[in-house]
């Protein structure tokens, strides 16, 4: 096949799809575009009303708030694209965050890198547990991870009891990760960006990554095609767990206290971020970058509504409207495809 690369350039066969127009059209077709526009409008409007919103400290806060959700949303995207889901991410994050506090407390001299490695490995084990249950028991991931949400949370409760670890228990260099900046970006945000980039490249540029899309697009066809569906789905759960572990360690760096209830309810924000970012809830399409943008949009809305002095109670309703909007956009897009199909069939008859 590689010899085919040297062949002469072939004109694009689609009628009326010139190169220049094609690029513009493909930008306009981007699933991430609506969320990008929404984010830009939101930031602009808030800035015009309250210019402090975009001060260096303001931007830093926006990014810091989004970082942990971005990492979790990237992991969740791997799963949603395969028609799976992991609702236990909040509980996994809680366990790892508490574990991080406990490690620093019992081994004060431990290198920070080692803590990251342990946290991600711990998360990977939890994720693998979900993955095994889903792929071996063949029970929908929604049900399995709803169960492990409570199991992991229960473990956390039993382990922590009423105990909490505070920032003072941890080395200063660890806390500095979420205070210090590089080129204006908090260190942990840069870490999150690196993770998102790696996940995005994996999803769009490697065969196993593309397999995940194929699995979500049509699981039966994927099996018939010879794609190792169980293996791929299991690995996606494992990777999601490792990312939740990373998020848990970062949580311990960013926030003052970690205890039995750390991360409670976070799974819904994460799934919402992915959906708002254009990841189709029924699998097969969407991107890690879109989910990251969705996470940024959701956390920015909260900050922006606060900056605009909108009542806190309205904020959740607005997030809800955003999710519904994302789903409606999805629906309209698929209806358009269906109509196109009818037209093309009518032409052929």
């Amino acid at each position: 096949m590689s010899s085919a690369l040297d062949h002469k350039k072939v004109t694009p066969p689609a009628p009326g799809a010139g190169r220049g127009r094609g690029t513009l059209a493909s930008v306009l077709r981007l699933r991430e575009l609506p969320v990008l526009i929404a984010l830009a409008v939101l930031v602009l409007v808030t800035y015009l009303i309250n210019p402090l919103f975009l001060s260096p400290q303001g931007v830093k806060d926006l990014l810091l708030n989004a970082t942990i959700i971005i990492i979790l949303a990237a992991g969740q995207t791997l799963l949603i694209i395969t028609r799976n889901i992991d609702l236990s991410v909040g509980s996994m994050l809680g366990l790892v965050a508490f574990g991080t506090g406990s490690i620093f407390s019992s081994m004060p001299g431990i290198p920070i890198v080692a803590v990251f490695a342990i946290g991600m490995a711990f998360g990977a084990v939890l994720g693998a547990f979900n993955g095994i249950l889903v792929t071996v028991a063949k029970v929908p991931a929604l049900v399995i991870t709803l169960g492990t949400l409570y199991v992991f949370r229960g473990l956390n409760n039993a382990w922590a009891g009423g105990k909490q670890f505070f920032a003072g228990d941890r080395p200063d260099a660890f806390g500095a990760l979420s205070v210090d900046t590089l080129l204006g970006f908090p260190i942990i945000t840069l870490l999150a960006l690196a993770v998102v980039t790696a996940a995005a490249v994996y999803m769009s540029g490697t065969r196993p990554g593309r397999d995940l899309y194929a699995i979500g697009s049509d699981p039966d066809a994927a099996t018939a095609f010879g794609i190792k569906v169980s293996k791929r789905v299991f690995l996606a759960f494992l990777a999601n767990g490792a990312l939740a572990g990373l998020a848990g360690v970062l949580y311990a760096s960013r926030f003052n206290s970690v205890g039995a209830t750390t991360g409670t309810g976070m799974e819904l924000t994460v799934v919402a971020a992915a959906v708002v970012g254009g990841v189709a809830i029924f699998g097969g399409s969407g991107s890690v970058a879109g989910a990251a943008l969705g996470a940024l949009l959701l956390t920015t809305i909260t900050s922006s509504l606060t900056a605009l002095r909108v009542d806190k109670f309205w904020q959740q309703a607005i997030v809800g409207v955003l999710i519904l909007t994302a789903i409606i956009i999805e629906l309209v897009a698929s209806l358009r495809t269906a109509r196109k199909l009818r037209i093309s069939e009518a032409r052929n008859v």
Partner: protein
Amino acid sequence: MVQFIQPQRCGYLMQQTYSPRSGPSGEGPRPVLSLHHAAKTFGPVVALAEGTIEIQAGEIHALVGENGAGKSTLVKILAGLHHPDSGDFKVSGESVQFRHVGDSKAAGISVIYQEPTLFPDLTVAENIFVGRQPKGRLGLISKAAMVREASMLFERLGVPIDPTRIAEGLSIADQQIIEIAKAISLDAKVLVMDEPTAALSGVEVDRLFAVARSLRDRGTGILFISHRFDEVFGLCDRITVMRDGRYISTHRTIDVAVEQIVREMVGRDIGALFPKVAAEAGDVVLQVEGLSRAGVFRDISFEVRAGEIVALAGLVGAGRTEVARAVFGIDPYDAGEIRFEGRKLKAGDPQAAITAGMGFVPEDRRKQGLVMNLSVARNVTLTLRNKLATAGLINGAAERRAAEEWSKRLQVKTGSQEHAVSTLSGGNQQKVVLAKWLATDPRLLIIDEPTRGIDVGTKSEVHRLISDLAGRGIAILMISSELPEVLGMADRVLVMREGRITAELDRADASPESVMHAATSSAGGTP
């Protein structure tokens, strides 16, 4: 009576490199694919008793046979989906044993189904290269190279499809072309097309055939499965006939006539199996006049009398079930009229049809006819809920009594009325469906494929039951794809082909040949 113009065949006659010979074995050049004496059973059901096929490089080989002749099973064996219980399978002279689809693909066999399964969210180019995308720098997938190679494939096929669009919304015809492009990029030696034209328009069929011929001329062996004789005779070099899961014969197309193929497809003893009790036909119960639905069926007119069994025969996809569904009010229709016992029946309203006195036993019992997890009693009384209810609540004792009575009358074999229907055998499930409708005291029963998936022993029991019902004055409209069933049971046979009734045959005139002819060729059988 029937003439087929075969302008394309001279093409291969001039091309001497691959000259297909007649006969299933031996005398020609070494076949690229050969399967001998393959058998496949599923539990007690013999799907394939003796499957034999030989495909030469550079020929288009037709596989024909009635519904249930074993063609699909044979195709699935070639595709690696089914593992034959026995048989001798060779590709390019080497014995092979496929464990899964990947093995078949690796051996150079590509199978294109009637409705291809593409990944709807992936682009056309990706669908062609799933799992073997060309890689560029850093070992990452090169989208540009993928699109370029896909474009070249489409150019070679002479079909303009945009490789960058997603597969969702593509017509079936385009999806098939994409599957063919995939096969070419895999360097397939054998291309199997399972009824590829069933869902295509005329223009699309021509395009597909042009592609098939150009592949043949490059040395690909093509197995073409079709119900349409004009296509088989217009396109194919050789024809293999199957019947009842067995290999019957292989002919060169130029040596054989349609009549002979039809004879070989149906040739068997009929009649003794299903004794129809003679019954006087009474008044007209159902009268259908000029019924049409755009793209589905056209100008359908017939009537069914009390005590009469009318069979709707034809091939799968001819529109028989669609007509029945329209008559019963499940689907709408565009034009025409349905009269039941003289009164016009409201369109698109199954409840009105039931109230008028109609019953409908669908083809797929598991999905449409029964609630599999409910008990036998509940299923039998499903249609009776209103009659059995007092003040809106169903009376349990009355329900049990009604269920017991009907189960006894139809001899449903079940341990208890409370057992879930899913535990019964296919034949007994069918009896439960029949009981369900009989309990409503219908004057007309529409039965779609009454014995599909029912073992031979129970089959005749179901037949006797239907015949008995007709004897009691119920009008029966039966859809069946099994010729013996049609010929054995029906007082009158309506044959459909591509959405139209092409023949109406009395019991005396109905023969395997006459029915098959009306079902397959546009020229024959029209009264």
